[in-house]
């Protein structure tokens, strides 16, 4: 239990997906104009990443390993993730329309979010077992959500500021992300896991 907790803490703060590993930077920069949409994206990613960590681990352990097909893991994982996202979209549309109307538009974008594939591959690379994989997927996604919501909050304020002209738009946003990343470097002093 203690290991799982340490792993989760490390995935959220120390090895934050955005600020330390750079997984999922496209949605981080693309869908962070408003805090509410950022939160919606974060929740959709959390949902998909938890489920996909479980699914890809199972596929790897029981399908690819026994047949010696490890080299196919990139293709297999991306197909599992794409199928899963499609399935989740249909499931939510049919059974939980309220959730679908808030998360629906983000779901197709998640297939090409490298955070999801990155988490799946990291699970295998680090040799996590099933519980650790699910915990890692869930907490890494929480770290992603936290990062994107903080960043969206800062960006909402940035719109009122007037930076030098060449810095307008993306450059100043990236600079802010750099400053937040610097703040997160403070966590790297904590060696727990």
């Amino acid at each position, binding site marked *: 239990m203690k290991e799982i907790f340490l792993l989760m803490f490390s995935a959220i703060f120390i090895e934050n997906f955005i*600020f*330390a*590993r*750079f*997984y*999922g*930077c*496209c949605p*981080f*920069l693309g869908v962070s104009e408003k805090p509410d949409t950022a939160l919606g994206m974060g929740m959709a990613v959390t949902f998909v990443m938890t489920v996909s960590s479980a699914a890809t681990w199972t596929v790897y352990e029981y399908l690819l390993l026994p047949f010696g097909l490890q*080299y*196919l*893991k*990139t*293709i297999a994982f*991306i*197909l599992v993730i*794409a199928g899963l996202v499609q399935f989740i979209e249909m499931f939510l549309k049919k059974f939980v329309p309220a959730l679908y109307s808030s998360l629906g538009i983000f779901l197709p974008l998640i*297939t*090409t*979010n*490298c955070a999801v*594939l*990155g988490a799946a*591959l*990291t699970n295998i*690379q680090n040799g996590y077992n099933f519980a650790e994989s699910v915990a890692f997927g869930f907490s890494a996604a929480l770290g992603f959500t936290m990062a994107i919501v903080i960043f969206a909050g800062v960006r909402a304020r940035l719109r009122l500021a007037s930076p*030098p*002209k*060449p*810095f*307008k738009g*993306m*450059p*100043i*946003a*990236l*600079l802010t*992300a*750099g*400053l937040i*990343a*610097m703040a*997160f*470097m403070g966590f790297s002093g904590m060696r727990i896991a």
Partner: protein
Amino acid sequence: MEKANNGFKRLLTQMKSGIIDNNPTFVLVLGMCPTLATTTSVTNALGMGLATTAVLAFSNLFISLLRNIIPKQVRIASYIVIISGFVTAVEMLMKAYLPSLDESLGVFISLIVVNCIILARAEAFASKNKPLPSLIDGISIGLGFTLALALLGTVREIIGAGTFFGVPLFGDAYQPAQLFIMPAGAFITLACLMAGVNYLRSRKR
């Protein structure tokens, strides 16, 4: 002769558009994960850029060849399968011939699959154009990406480690600003380079 000349001119315009006017990193702001993550040194940046270029060129070519066969409803899934096939090939080649580069790029080689540049070019260009222009488009966009990565890698390696291609530049007394090879430095360097590109573009007009 005249015709060949025209074709060559068209090719040059297309190359220029891919490398400069539509530079995937500085202008379109696509494919940010590898841009930020793998530019800690020039060698890594070039390796990543060229690997992406290879995948982009071949996937563009094959998607364009298959553009009339792939049904519209499942096109994205088909593109992903084609792309991940080439990524796996690149991954295996790199493991065999460039093990040290493979080691330092790690998971990011596999993550070329989800690089938005590749899917964007497949959807926006290769699915609508003939094979040869698609191949050229893939190569020029890829080179634009490689150039941007190499630029970022150069700045970060020189400031952050005091080396260029691993060769020390300033002697022993130099204390490198390690911030620049850390994640925060990636964001800051990219922001400054992007602002510089914006400034140059606004002056040209």
